[in-house]
């Protein structure tokens, strides 16, 4: 066991948190390790100093000061506070709400995309059809309507 781990055992030992087995192991270790014995003594002395420390004096006006300030905020804007409290009550549903909004957004996006691509397809088919119908004679059943584009009916070449 490393020095830090033995020191942790010493800490627990001082705080009476070691079981019998660990306490016995520590006791055996302290018989042989000078450094850890020194640590154990120093920790005892430090605990004594920490426990002996005087208590801070709490100012007598502090409670009233805190109460006044918090009440001021509580009364400042009941509607604002009510709104915030209402929203805060959903705090734990926020991730689920965010997820739902995301799914809804993606769904709407997909629908919009589908509609758009459908419109584009319809649009390009119509324009192609219009072009072909312009290129070829309506009553010429044998000729390809595309051939008519290249035939110079006036006699001149391209």
């Amino acid at each position, binding site marked *: 066991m490393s020095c830090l781990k033995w020191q*942790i055992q010493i800490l627990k030992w001082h705080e009476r948190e070691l079981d019998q087995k660990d306490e016995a192991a520590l006791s055996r270790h302290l018989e042989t390790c000078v450094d850890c014995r020194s640590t154990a003594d120093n920790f005892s002395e430090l605990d004594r100093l*920490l426990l002996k420390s005087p208590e801070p*004096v709490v100012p007598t006006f502090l409670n009233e000061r805190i109460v006044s300030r*918090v009440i001021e905020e*509580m009364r400042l804007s009941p509607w604002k506070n009510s709104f*915030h409290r209402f929203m805060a009550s959903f705090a734990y549903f926020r991730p689920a709400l965010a997820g739902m909004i995301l799914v809804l957004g993606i769904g709407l996006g997909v629908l919009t995309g589908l509609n758009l691509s459908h419109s584009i397809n319809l649009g390009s088919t119509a324009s192609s059809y219009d072009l072909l119908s312009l290129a070829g004679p309506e009553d010429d059943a044998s000729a390809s309507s595309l051939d008519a584009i290249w035939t110079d009916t006036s006699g001149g070449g391209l």
Partner: protein
Amino acid sequence: MPLRSDEELIQALGKGDEDALRVLVDRHTASVYKFSIRYTGDESLAQDICQEAFLRIYRNARKYLPGMPFKTWLFTIVRNTSIDFARSYTYRKASSLEELSQEIEKKFLIDQDSDPEQRYLSLESAQKVVRAVQSLPEKQRTAVILRYYGGMSVKEVAGIMKSTASSVESLLVRAKNNLIKLLQI
């Protein structure tokens, strides 16, 4: 009338109950103030931290889950407030040992009735310990104050510091080793 538990008081505070606020403040200001002043060493800053901490308690009262240990929740807020304030403000530090002595004598209960020599020894010892604790790194300082002055268990300290019990134990050992060097034990 039976005493209301902290959990009941917090839930009432979340609904705007001013009486619940008063009871909570009376019950917990002392421990909050003692943490703050040991953490910062500055009286005025500690008072500001207390005020801000209770404001945050009020604002977050609705988020408090009934099953959560109240002390852990309270001191998480207090600790975070102390960190925020210590980071944002340059607070006045005692410029001389004499000034520190006067501050400590005023801020801490030194037995005024004991003989002068005893008072001197108590004061000297107190100022050394106070200074030593305040000079520790933040996490070590927090762990020492919560454990040895706040009387909290290692598990409670771990909850407040969002850490594990074994990490807190390592922190305490390091803190003690640092304090031993600083206090020249």
